[in-house]
């Protein structure tokens, strides 16, 4: 009888537990060894050496075989028996590690500086840090860009082909999703901004709001990023 029955693909037929024509006493002894090893490995705070197990189980137990059987039994389970530095321990199956950590979502509000920077990146992309500073009239904190990178709403696009080869920034798809936009070109223009009250008073002649360019292909004056460019941003936001 297949007692563990936990998996279709585990070769349970190979378990010594189920091998051949065992006499009942031998089966009982083997079961006892398996159960004992299971309990000891479970309760131990440290990985257990095979010799240690041998000392604690019934004399004459084939510990290596017990461990091999246990490893097979648990191979497809939520916990696996693993050998670490010659000792044995139960450990959560690697593919289930995510179940052990629970995410707690913390709502956070963007700072005013971050919001302004984000807005400029959205409208003026591709845009360099110097250009952002020029528009805002103040220098931009590295932290502000870091926070925006963390939101996953902005990304580094490339490098402007000008002296100093500054990085260019743009928005991401996550940005569009979060703000409910189909494309950055959906961002309101001067007239809409005025109509909605975001711009007040007389707008001087020559004042314009750019039509954002968010196409993934680089602009003629943009060079692609190299791996070196990403070294500062570790770990990267998922959508990059």
């Amino acid at each position: 009888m297949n007692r563990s029955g936990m998996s279709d693909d585990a070769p349970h037929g190979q378990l010594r537990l189920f091998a051949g024509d065992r006499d009942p006493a031998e089966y009982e002894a083997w079961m006892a060894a398996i159960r004992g090893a299971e309990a000891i490995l479970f309760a131990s705070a440290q990985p257990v050496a095979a010799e240690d197990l041998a000392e604690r189980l019934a004399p004459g137990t084939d510990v290596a075989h017990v461990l091999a059987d246990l490893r097979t039994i648990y191979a497809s389970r939520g916990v696996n028996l693993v050998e670490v530095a010659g000792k044995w321990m139960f450990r959560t199956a690697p593919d289930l590690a995510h179940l052990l950590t629970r995410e707690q979502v913390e709502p956070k509000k963007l700072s005013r500086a971050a919001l302004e920077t984000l807005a400029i990146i959205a409208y003026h992309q591709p845009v360099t840090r110097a250009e952002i500073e020029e528009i805002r009239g103040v220098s931009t904190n590295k932290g502000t860009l870091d926070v925006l990178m963390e939101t996953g709403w902005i990304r580094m696009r490339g490098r402007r082909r000008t002296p100093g080869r500054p990085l260019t920034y743009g928005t991401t798809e996550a940005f569009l999703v979060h703000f409910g936009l189909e494309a950055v070109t959906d961002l309101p223009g001067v007239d809409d901004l005025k109509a909605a009250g975001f711009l007040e008073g007389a707008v001087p002649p020559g004042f314009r709001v750019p039509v954002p360019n968010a196409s993934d292909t680089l602009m003629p004056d943009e060079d692609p990023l190299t791996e070196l460019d990403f070294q500062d941003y570790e770990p990267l936001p998922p959508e990059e």
Partner: protein
Amino acid sequence: MVTTDEWSESRLDVDPTAGEAFVVDLDGFEGPLDLLLTLARNQKVDLARISILALADQYLAFIDKLGEHRLELAADYLVMAAWLAYLKSRLMLPPDEVPQDEPSAEELAGMLAMRLKRLEGIRILAGRLLDRSRLGRDVLPRGAPEETGLVKRSLWEASLYDLLDAYGRQRQRDMVRVHTVRKRQVWALADARDILERLVGTIADWAPIDDYLVRYMTGPDSRATVRASAFSAALELVREGRMELMQSSPFAPLYMRKGPGGPDTPEEGA
């Protein structure tokens, strides 16, 4: 019935040769009820059928005996002795001589039996509790629990309104800045005078002033201010006699040369 070792200590050493006489260490008892229960168990009958009268006799005899050897007995034991003596006398009275508003002797005896039973019951329960598989002693939890941590993830909040508001605000600031920032560049009079004073010392004969000023005219915007300031400063220097100016006709080039009261002449004080 109570199997746990916590209970196995014998607290009542019966000397088999002494009949009903006990050799007892009172310290082993948890109070008079415990002593009564121990005595009752010694009757070897079910508690429900115990003879309270016999039990009272045993208790009183026991206390008497202790009294012979020890001067001090805990008040609890004496109170119980007094109550049992009273109960005993009541039990021996004919029932009709008992006041109606008091519980009968049988009821009092029954209450005592009930208390004994209840104490014994709780002891059995305690024993059963201890006989359970206890965590850490009989059954063990996972020895090496794995980290089940909490990962904090930030959820950034911002609305399209916030975004447009932020954009509108700063572009608005931008518009205002356009007006204030365009500051006209001017050549200060003092600067012009300093420069002319230095220049004129090197010029021996008439020379067009523009030739010397051109290097200060950095852009179309600055030409006017350089000329105006230089002219004003020049007029002042002429008045002081340090410079001479000459112009052939209106709008013709202006010539300058060192004046009679040049740099060699001591200053007169303005």
